[in-house]
């Protein structure tokens, strides 16, 4: 559990379009790393390359290495399905499976990986995962109701429960709070702080206060202009990025002068 990620000189392409260029970054286990930057700078694209989700979009490919505890995600013979079961992802908009109950949503990933699970183990795992996502007390009486009946914030925590139920090493979050109200956002941020004890967490956010509140390290991405590739400008301790950035562009962005 909780593995480190090392990215070496990664280029991300959509067909011939170079979307992200030359990113090298080391993400420590059991830490929260935030990606910030203006819209279109490639931070979400880069995040998706960390569990090969960018390949879902036709033409998506990379050059370079992404190492999970030293194992290259893009090595020959590596199945993206295996990668994704070890590096989970939470999306911008809550996306519980609408046709499944809350319980089945939590178990969706576990049942996928071909495992048979006894009913008592399943019940225990559902409770553990929902507790891990701070959702248990709110839904324990309606586990058989559809997941789509929950509020947005609850749905997002259900998605986090679903992700941690498969016991990943890393959890990626792509702007997990952008569709949520402030109270739900706070609940998710508290949860991220707890997840850090067991998992490596990487979060993309548009909200700089959020990055400052939840992350240990922050990476600032920027783009030189439309059609140009996004680049990693600065990566440092969150405190340093927000109080004492090395790059002018980072300072301009975090102080609100652009973006």
């Amino acid at each position, binding site marked *: 559990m909780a593995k480190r990620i090392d990215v070496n000189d990664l280029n991300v392409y959509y067909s011939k379009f170079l979307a992200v260029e030359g990113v090298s970054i080391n993400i420590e286990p059991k830490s929260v790393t935030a990606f910030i930057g203006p819209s279109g700078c490639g931070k979400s694209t880069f995040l998706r390359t960390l569990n090969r989700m960018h390949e879902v979009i036709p033409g998506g490919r990379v050059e370079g290495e992404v190492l999970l505890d030293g194992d290259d995600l893009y090595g020959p013979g590596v199945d993206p399905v295996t990668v*994704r079961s070890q590096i*989970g*992802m939470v999306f911008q908009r809550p996306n519980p*499976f*609408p046709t499944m109950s809350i319980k089945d949503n939590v178990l*969706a*990933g576990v049942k996928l990986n071909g495992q048979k699970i006894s009913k008592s183990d399943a019940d225990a795992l559902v409770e553990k995962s929902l507790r891990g996502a701070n959702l248990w007390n709110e839904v324990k009486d309606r586990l058989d109701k559809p997941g*789509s009946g929950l509020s947005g914030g609850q749905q997002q925590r259900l998605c986090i429960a*679903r992700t941690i139920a498969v016991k990943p090493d890393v959890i990626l979050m792509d702007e997990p709070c952008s569709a949520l109200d402030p109270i739900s956002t706070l609940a998710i941020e508290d949860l991220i702080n707890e997840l850090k004890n067991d998992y490596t967490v990487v979060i993309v956010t548009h909200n700089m206060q959020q990055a400052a509140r939840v992350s240990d390290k922050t990476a600032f991405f920027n783009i030189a202009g439309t059609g140009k590739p996004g680049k990693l400008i600065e990566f440092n301790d969150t405190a340093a990025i927000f109080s004492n950035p090395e790059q002018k562009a980072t300072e301009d962005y975090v102080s609100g002068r652009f973006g």
Partner: protein
Amino acid sequence: MTTNALTSKSSTSGRAGDKIFSGAALGAGVLILITLFAVAVFLLIQALPTFMADPADISGGEGFFAYIWPIVIGTVIAAAIALLIATPIGLGVALFISHFAPRRIAGPLGYVIDLLAAIPSVIYGAWGYMVLAPALVPGYDWLAANMGFIPIFEGPASQTGKTMLTAGIVLAVMVLPIITSLSREIFLQTPKLHEEAALALGATRWEMITTAVLPFARPGIISAVMLGLGRALGETMAVALVLSTGGLIPSLIQSGNQTIAAEIALNFPEAFGLRLAELIAAGLVLFLITLVVNMIARAIIARHKEFSGAN
């Protein structure tokens, strides 16, 4: 005297558009109900003499029920064969087009399938009569020789191939494009979010389809199959051409059996008086079958409403 500033007249022209539109929509909706009602009334009135007549005067001489039930069963069997064959193939082709085929192939293939739906049924009938039926004879002989212990494959097999099974296969080919194009459209509408959710949990493509696509598309698949069933139940020309009719027999590879639609089409031109009423009564029964089947389908869809994702 105070005037309410909110009661301005400026919006009256906009209102007129609203009124025309809601009137037109209401009119269209009511028209459907009237049509359905008128069909039902027509069938009932015209069929009435059949139910009043002396059972000995009905074709077969044993009353309407004895006359109708063999062809009801024939109709249901033909439609069932068609759906049993067409549903899995149609869903498979639709999934291939929507989720497996490269875009370059998917587009033209979808277009060809849509074209198949536009071929007139008489052409399918002619093809079934002239090409398919003779081609199936060796297969029927084999079935009769090796599987003959099962009543539906009891020999001797028809030597023209004009059997219930052939009719069912022709119907399957006819309903295949309906099921395929409708379910393809529904598969394509699966929210990307849900597909990605499944993939991000470590689903293979097939697991993604079973967890995200198929449950989402379930009501649509049922509707597609129902529309296919509607065509299979009501199909006249193809069955009339392909099937060598006769009394009800269990074997699907001998001549025999009949469907309601073909029975009406074959006998209608020379029918008058009580015979005409009989045929219309048969039409009424067909109408009821489709109604019941559709109600069952609606009930199945409604039973899972809570989990449809519409909320």
